[in-house]
């Protein structure tokens, strides 16, 4: 399952995105957006849909790129298009329309692109899911978890929040309990694929 992926020459797009470089973002937009737009327009979408899907895909790729261990093993275009296509298919499902053509299907036959694209979207879905649960916590829980996950020890957390160390630990444990409950009680949790 974890065989080594060979880095594709387009990896520079990933590095440029990870560094948040404007010129790389602009270059990607100019080079690849027209094709995405064509695909969306051919599949019952509008120009505004194409822009939304492109942005969503780019944010997913950006977040994945920021995690540092990402190896692009296929052309960037195929990877981006796979993600856009999957996002658009989901959107159409929401809109209850499924008449999607296979006009650009050749791109998606790139197995590596398909796999990478799916992994990226799943990764983003998980990020979002856990974040939404965190957002449901109360203010004091968010503060204590935020501090304790910023890389400082519980002693310092307690000092910064001006509470006792014992209380800080107890409170953190309660907050974690609450967070885990929110995660496990959401039916969407069961739907997130885990290998």
């Amino acid at each position, binding site marked *: 399952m974890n065989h080594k992926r060979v880095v594709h020459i387009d990896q520079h797009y990933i590095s440029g995105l990870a560094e948040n470089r*404007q010129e790389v973002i602009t270059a990607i937009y100019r080079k690849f957006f027209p094709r995405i737009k064509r695909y969306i327009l051919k599949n019952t979408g509008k120009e505004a849909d194409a822009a939304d899907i492109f942005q969503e895909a780019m944010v997913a790729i*950006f*977040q994945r790129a920021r995690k540092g261990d990402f190896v692009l093993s296929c052309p960037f275009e195929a990877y981006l298009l796979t993600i856009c296509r999957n996002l658009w298919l989901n959107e159409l499902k929401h809109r209850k329309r499924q008449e999607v053509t296979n006009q650009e299907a050749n791109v998606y036959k790139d197995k590596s692109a398909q796999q990478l694209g799916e992994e990226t979207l799943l990764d983003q879905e998980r990020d979002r899911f856990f974040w939404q649960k965190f957002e449901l916590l109360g203010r004091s829980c968010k503060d204590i978890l935020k501090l304790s996950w910023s890389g400082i020890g519980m002693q310092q957390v307690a000092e910064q929040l001006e509470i006792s160390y014992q209380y800080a630990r107890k409170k953190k*444990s309660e907050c974690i309990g609450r967070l885990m409950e929110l995660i496990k009680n959401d039916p969407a949790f069961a739907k997130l694929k885990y290998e």
Partner: protein
Amino acid sequence: MSKNYEHILAYLDNELSAEERAAFEKRLASEPPLAAEMDLLKEAQSRIAFQLKEEQAIADFQSHLQEAIQEDLQDKPTSFIKRYGLYITIAAAAIALLIIFWPGGSESLYRQYAQHPQLALTERSTDSEALAADATEKFNAGQYATAFDLLNDYSSYHPNDPEIILFQGICLLELGQAESAIPYFNQLHESNAINRYEGTWYLALTYLYISEQEASQTNLDRVISLLEEIPPSSAYYEEAQALLGEL
């Protein structure tokens, strides 16, 4: 359950003694639900901590992305330039040279500024492909009457395509039928099409042409106000400003 979290947290936060740690690891090995619970907690922590750390970076990224898109939208003529390739750049360079070196007086302003982009419709792969190739060839060879007829046929496959409308207008203008060209350019000028400022530019040129033909000043105010409407983001801004200077 919260008790378990206390243990897991103490373990993850490195707050257990060596013996406690060993004992807890033993439990992890023999209690898969506990191990699964710890994995889930680790994942939640790593994903949420990532989002917390990345909040600013994501906001920056989104604003960079918006910038790229906005820049392109404002520059819609840029995609027009892309589409018509090098030709329009060459035409613009030729105009610049004319402006710099024009000895003045002997040719009309209209002629100086009417440097048309080349037509390039061959990208479109539809039933009308052959028609597109013919129209492109004729227009670029300056055979405007034939090109106009071919563009008319082509437009039945692509009704209201703003780029076809532009070139139909240019054909008429080149054929000396300025009055007939006006509705074409006006349609673009009054639209939200990506090349609407090309429409504005050509409408101004058309009135300039008429004004020169009639040797009257009556249309010049119209030319000026049209040129003033062309914004800096348009590919025709510099020409418009230069022409305004001359007027």
